[in-house]
């Protein structure tokens, strides 16, 4: 399986892609790498940081892989797309281009993952016209230094995240 390298403020983590389960999503992600941006901490899905995909990196992919019915485990790396049709209130913490439509890597780094208000969102799994969430990779090396950096984002603000191919 192909591997990804995550670098967050000097801390590194490695993830393995689920090429055997969601090959088209993995190909699309691989093709846009490297991706970098200022990651922000979640406020609905608990221990998650997000990397928004913008400009030429934006991905609008169909759903792929078995339905997960909203279940998320720590270490999951999820491709997330949200339709412009979704009302989320004012999104002042996000850049203006992400006020409605959103394309991102959702990176779950600890427990609880996916809990909170996200867990009972009635639109999860409602249809690909509203949201697409595809689990496409999982961390296989997630040091505490990396998870500490993730946790720091919620208190200290945005941190630069770089996602690259790990060439073997």
């Amino acid at each position, binding site marked *: 399986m192909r591997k990804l390298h995550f670098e967050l403020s000097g801390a590194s983590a490695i993830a393995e892609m689920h090429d055997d389960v969601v090959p088209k999503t993995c190909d699309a992600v691989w093709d846009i790498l490297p991706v970098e941006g*200022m990651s*922000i*901490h*979640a*406020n*609905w*899905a*608990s*221990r*998650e940081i997000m990397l928004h995909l913008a400009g030429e990196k934006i991905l609008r992919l169909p759903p792929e892989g078995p339905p997960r019915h909203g279940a998320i485990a720590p270490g999951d790396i999820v491709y997330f797309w949200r339709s412009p049709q979704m*009302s*989320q*209130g*004012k*999104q*002042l*913490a996000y850049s203006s281009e992400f006020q409605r439509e959103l394309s991102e890597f959702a990176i779950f780094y*600890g*427990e*609880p993952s996916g*809990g*909170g*208000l*996200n*867990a*009972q969102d009635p639109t999860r799994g409602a249809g690909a016209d509203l949201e697409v969430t595809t689990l496409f990779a999982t961390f296989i090396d997630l040091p505490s230094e990396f*998870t*500490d950096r993730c*946790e720091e984002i*919620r*208190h*200290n*603000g*945005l941190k630069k995240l770089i996602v690259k191919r790990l060439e073997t």
Partner: protein
Amino acid sequence: MTRVKITLGSAEALAELDVEGAPKTTSWLKTVLPVEAQAIHSMENGREVYALIDDPQQVPEENQTIYQCVGDLVVYYKPAIFVKPTWPRHVRSFLVVGFIYERQSAIRGMSGPLATNLVGKITEGIDALAHEAPRMRREGFGEIGISLV
């Protein structure tokens, strides 16, 4: 009318306490004010900012709702895992005072909605808080202050 001032960074707001609806909670709150603490943004409830209150008194369930609204000032016991990176050894929840600054928010426990004591309503300055909190999400959180007016 009993009011409190809430400060978050450069933003100031005023909230009216619901003395009639939450007499025990408002009495308790007055005993712990003024509060000056690290402001923490919710990771699980949406647009909520809160402060941990270090007080051994038990706050009873009162004036409760699972349908928190923008401007609500709430008091409740938040599961510790939403505050700390791992479960503390012997602490399972933290007493918090928090406010909701934008819609698409509701307080959650480990397995579903969490009823919270509605202790007051922000009557002035919610827009300022609604701009300061997102700024802090991007730039880092400072202190939250709550004091009697």
